[in-house]
């Protein structure tokens, strides 16, 4: 049985669809896909905001993302007479983190936290901060309620699963026992805590001090002390967003290319969504090669090219046939790789997007991609 075809237009025009999350491994075209979906949905009459993570410069310009103020801005030239409009924003993870701190603590406290060196490294380089802040921003946009559809691009991590796992990992870290224990000396003001936590931890604290220097632990203590009111909040927030994503109004789209690595990641992700009973809408396979002349096989084209090369004086036609053979061989290889995926996941709806000759950096090109996503080609 062949898998179903992903009906993007039905998904986008269904008012019950409130969130579309585009996931996939790095370099498969997630950002372009999210932007194209958002433009198409707005043109079809929906009030859309697209949250991009790290768009290429010219794509950002096409979306009017010239001001990086972590706030959605209206995109001119998109929408419909029926009221469709598009907003776009690029995630600023540090700023998003700062805003959470500011929102949840007194001005004095938040100044303390924001200037803490440990906080600064946590908010700008902790593995998973970007994913956590993307989730956080998504939660905020949803809570604002100004849009009836939110399209989310996910951070360019190695593994597509990071988007789902990193926020909880980070929340566990922030709410975790380890961090509290490290902060304990500052709070207890003495060494009594050592008895409670045991020798292993003492050793750990000693080694940490040796390696990282006493200053780091002092910073950690100060940070934990200042953040005290927010503890528990991190995990709660991460869990709330995760739950929101598992409700029916969300549609996960897994983006891939017909390459083994990208489809392996897509497989992991599909399995994970199934396990967690999260709503998978389908898989988009970008950059698929197809020939306009499938009836002429690659082998026949190659044989004919060889014959013409022997005859001489027919370089043009020989080259045209060799180009065709190359396209056919590439297409066949891609089909084999894709078939491996569809055999493992026969229930998953697919949409293949043909490889484009140029790069996508204006609204017209995004609309072309959108049409391809909807199967209009």
């Amino acid at each position, binding site marked *: 049985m062949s898998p179903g075809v992903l009906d993007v237009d039905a998904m986008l025009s269904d008012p019950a669809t409130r969130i579309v999350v585009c996931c996939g491994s790095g370099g498969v075209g997630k950002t372009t896909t999210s932007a194209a979906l958002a433009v198409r949905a707005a043109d079809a009459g929906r009030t859309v905001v697209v949250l991009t993570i790290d768009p290429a410069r010219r794509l950002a310009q096409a979306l009017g993302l010239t001001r990086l103020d972590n706030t959605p801005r209206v995109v001119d030239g998109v929408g419909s007479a029926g009221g469709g409009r598009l907003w776009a924003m690029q995630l600023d993870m540090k700023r998003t983190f700062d805003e959470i701190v500011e929102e949840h603590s007194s001005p004095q406290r938040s100044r303390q936290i924001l200037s803490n060196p440990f906080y600064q490294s946590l908010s700008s380089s*902790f593995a998973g901060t970007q994913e956590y802040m993307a989730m956080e921003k998504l939660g905020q946009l949803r809570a604002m309620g100004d849009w009836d559809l939110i399209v989310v691009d996910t951070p360019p991590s190695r593994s597509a699963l990071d988007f789902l796992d990193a926020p909880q990992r980070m929340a566990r870290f922030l709410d975790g026992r380890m961090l509290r224990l490290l902060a304990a000396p500052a709070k207890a003001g003495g060494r009594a805590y050592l008895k409670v936590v045991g020798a292993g931890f003492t050793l750990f604290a000693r080694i940490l001090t040796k390696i990282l220097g006493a200053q780091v632990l002092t910073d950690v203590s100060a940070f934990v002390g200042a953040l005290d009111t927010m503890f528990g909040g991190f995990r709660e927030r991460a869990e709330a967003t995760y739950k929101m994503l598992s409700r029916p109004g969300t549609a996960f789209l897994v983006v891939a290319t017909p390459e083994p690595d990208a489809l392996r990641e897509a497989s992991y992700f599909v399995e994970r969504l199934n396990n967690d009973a999260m709503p998978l809408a389908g898989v988009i396979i970008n950059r698929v090669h197809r020939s306009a002349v499938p009836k002429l096989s690659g082998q026949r084209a190659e044989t004919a090219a060889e014959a013409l090369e022997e005859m001489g004086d027919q370089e*043009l036609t020989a080259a045209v046939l060799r180009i065709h053979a190359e396209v056919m061989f590439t297409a066949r290889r891609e089909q084999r790789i894709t078939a491996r995926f569809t055999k493992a996941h026969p229930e998953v709806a697919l949409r293949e997007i043909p490889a484009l000759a140029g790069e996508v950096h204006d609204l017209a090109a995004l609309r072309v991609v959108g049409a391809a996503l909807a199967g209009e080609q």
Partner: protein
Amino acid sequence: MPATDPDFPAARLHIVTGKGGTGKTTVAAALAIALAYGGRRTLLVEVEGRQGIASLFDYPPLPYKETRVAVAPGGGEVLALAVDDEAALLDYLDIFYSLRRAGRALRKMGAIDFATAIAPGLRDVLLTGKVKEAATRTVGGKRVYHAVVLDAPPTGRITKFLNVTAEVSGLAKVGPIKTQSDGVMAVLRSSQTAVHLVTLLEEMPVQETIDAIADLTATHLPVGAVIVNAARPSLLPPADERRAIAGRLGVSRVAAGLELAGLDSKTLAKPLTEQAMEDAHRYAVQDESRARIQALARSTYELPLLPGPIDLSDLFELADILNAAGVR
């Protein structure tokens, strides 16, 4: 025959970066093989826990141990190592504090994960430290590896990853970790190191390459070569390629050739010609990208597109090309 690549004659530590999807692991592997030609021993290192090297060489996941993965023409050999950050921290604790056993206990507590988490710079110092150690290791006054090739993080993160001194500046001001990072930085900034950038002939990877070169240069890290991967040789004769790019390839000429080859020119000539013209756009993009790379005035190597999935024989083919281009 020159003993080393004339473009970076003293380089022993080759750091390979590139935008995601440009094939930097493949290029790093081919480079490690090319540098092992003529009876030399090289080490290929990965640091991102992906086990990309193992799958490329068709090996089971690599242990944290230098393992031979290939032999090179002339009796050379390539070893590989997947550096794991936990294991690197345990090593470090063992070397500087004789704390191997305690380290294991810490691992059970999840403390190692924690330590590298609260100080992200620590992780990078440990990883680059391990690479530096291998690159400078000697036995009996002789270097163990002719060259070490690092399959490094992608261009977006490379400068930060390599700029370890700045990364740990917030950490201990004295003590082993400071000494360690200063030692690593000294090697990374010396002529023993070359940071190579892998790119495709496409707009975005080329832009990232240009940006990364600017960042690396500003940080005083030695930029090596730009390695173009997956370049497609043009199949059309030059004059026809120009016509194809301009969208003016003659259907009738193609039709005449198809007749000669005994193919149905009536139904085939037009779509095949159009397909060739569409394909020519990619050459045009390639040519533009190539011109931007040439404007950088860096030494450049070009590797062809191979019909994947890449296997060991492909790696040798790419290594041959690098070797013929002067990589030793």
